């Protein structure tokens, strides 16, 4: 199977609001796919729909050949999807280590992944006993990504990893995401086109709740008109 995830013409609601109105794309296995589009276009809702956190009323979400729409979020996630949400959602009352530990799906997950995670983010090792919220923005982002790596996830959904971070740290984050994409497929939501274009092989553009274009990132980079039309000045 070449596509790990297929999103087929989904219509999604958050409360009574009809946010996604026909989003359709596929995610090839072993690559990074970037979801692009303006603020409020529905990129985050697309990620939430895949996980079942937004209710999919029409269309299908197929993960590793299995229809998952309508299943409760915890069952979908347990199939092997890691989620790194938009504002990181680090658990305040938990230490850094507990923030990682809670993501274990089987006993001992964290111990097996420990070296991999600390190779990616050596900083975290120093902060294991701090509370989640005592970290800086960049460290919180690292922790949020690390948390998604603890369990064996074949797909990672990463929402705005560069948001609010200093350029040096963004560079570090890009390296880390590139490294971890060797193990898992990544779907990335990114406002910063530069970051997205450095990382992703494929792109999907979402505009007003509809997927309007998709293809290879290098074709998009060459097509300045399309970038301008859908993403504004970039």
């Amino acid at each position, binding site marked *: 199977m070449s596509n790990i995830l297929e999103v087929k013409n989904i219509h999604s609601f958050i409360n009574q609001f009809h946010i996604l109105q026909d989003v359709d794309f596929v995610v090839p296995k072993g690559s990074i796919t970037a979801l692009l589009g303006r603020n409020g276009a529905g990129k985050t809702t697309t990620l939430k729909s895949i*996980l079942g*956190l937004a209710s999919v009323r029409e269309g299908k979400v197929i993960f590793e050949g299995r229809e998952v729409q309508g*299943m*409760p*979020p*915890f*069952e979908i*996630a*347990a199939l092997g999807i890691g*989620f790194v*949400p938009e504002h990181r*959602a680090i*658990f*305040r*009352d*938990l230490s850094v280590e*507990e923030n990682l*530990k*809670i*993501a274990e*799906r089987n006993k001992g997950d964290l111990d097996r992944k420990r070296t991999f995670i600390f190779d990616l983010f050596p900083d975290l090792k120093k902060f294991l006993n701090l509370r989640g919220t*005592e970290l800086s923005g960049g460290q919180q982002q690292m922790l949020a990504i690390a*948390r998604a790596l603890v*369990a064996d996830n074949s797909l990672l959904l990463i929402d705005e990893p560069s948001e609010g971070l200093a350029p040096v740290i963004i560079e570090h984050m890009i390296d880390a995401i590139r490294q971890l994409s060797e193990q898992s497929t990544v779907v990335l939501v990114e406002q910063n086109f530069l970051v997205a274009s450095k990382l992703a092989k494929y792109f999907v553009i979402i505009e007003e709740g509809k997927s309007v274009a998709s293809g290879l990132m290098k074709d998009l980079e060459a097509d300045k008109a399309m970038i301008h039309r859908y993403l504004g000045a970039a």
Partner: protein
Amino acid sequence: MKTNLRKNSKAIIILVIIAAFLFVAARGMSGRDVLITVLRGFSTGSVTFLVAAGFSLIFGLLDVLNLAQGTLYMIGAYVGWTVYVRPDTFIDVLTPVLLILAGFSLSALWGRLASRIQLAPKARKIISWLLILAGFGLLALVLTSYPIAIWNLNNYSESPITYSYMADQGLRIIPAEVTFEKISPFLAILGLLVSSAISAFGIALLNRDESKSQAINWRRYLAPAILLLIGVLAAVFNAQITGWMFAMSTNWLFVIAILIAILSGVGLGSLMETTLIRPLYNRPIYQLMLTLGLGTIGVQIVQAVWGRPEFVWPKPEFFTGTGGACPATNLADLLEYNCSTVFLLGGRVRVYDEIFIPIVGIIVLIVVWILLKRSRIGMIIRAGVQDRQMVEALGINVRRVFTLVFALGVGLATFGGALAAPSTGLTPVMGERLLLSALIALAIGGLTSFPGAALGSLLVGLIQQFMIKYGQIGIPLPFTDAVFKPSPPLVPASTVLLMVIVLLILPGGLLGSKE
């Protein structure tokens, strides 16, 4: 540490002010009075804490304000009393309750079976409702002819008051046994099991799409099998177990009563969450109305079964000794003669009310604290209080943790009731005042903070007891000869006043973080 200090500076200042206030308040009293008032404050605080902690756990994770918590506290007291004073009634009731639970706990298996049955939606609805009605009808039929030895509210010599009084005097009336007359025991057991299984199947058929991907393994048979086994054993050896419990030392009976009270809370809590609260998530107003209504219904049911008048729960032997070297002045005497009171700083202190209850409160605080801080469930609860969606996105079934937390929270409340009743006595309205105290304690301490619940309860307990004490000895007013004696209604009012002051300065409460 430093940032912690700065962040909590306001809370620390308020605590210092309260401590100073209590210090000043205590200056008008003798050391003996201060000690006893503080101990009573800890005692009231411990009981308040048990109810408040349950409330706060439930609200923190589930966002449900369980206003029935006070009633559940009261039910805990009545259940515990029944086990302690009338073990025969308890054993008689145990069998049907366990058998019905066994029947209903089969519903997980029924769900599997129900999903195989292909029916038109309308036919399925009609058939499932018919099954439910038939099941409950049969259940009612069997239950009404099931023999249960119980007190008689209409005859004073057989009322709960008399049984309590006699037990308090150390004279246990062994009530007459009731036997199977209208129905054979075998038929009764079978009937209970079949009728509850039929209704459970009806319910499973009604919402069959909910249970789709559940694997069946032998563990699912375990719970019904254990319930069935205990239920049948209790029925077969009814007379023996009853006799054994009547002959038992009251200390052990007391321990059993407390455990059963906790278990009944855990059971009621899971039942409430799975059947009534679960359909109402995301509808806070309905939840409020539901829990408020359940609280009122609970009070009415208790009044109907146990009667309106107040009665006592006699304390166990361990706390009632008066002979020998009592009141004890040292630990050895206390343990040898099981004294009901001890001398501390020249004052007499009641062992159960003023020493035992605070100790239990502190133990529960530590146990729940460890559960929250050290166990995986505790970690999930702490994380879920902040962000439920993210916990689910990690692949954790939060709903199951919800049921557990609700059961735990209600269990704490019933525990509190059973613990407090030997000291306060039992009335059907005992929960109302306590719910108010617990809510004020939570507002003071911070609604979703567990240490806040403990601190708030302690403050509420202390202030109440100091007001009561001053109601007795009076406060000399400065520059006059007049003495001000706070009247009893000022006791709850003083806690409300403290709450208002705290909330004006710290809207989130002393240790609260979430608004």
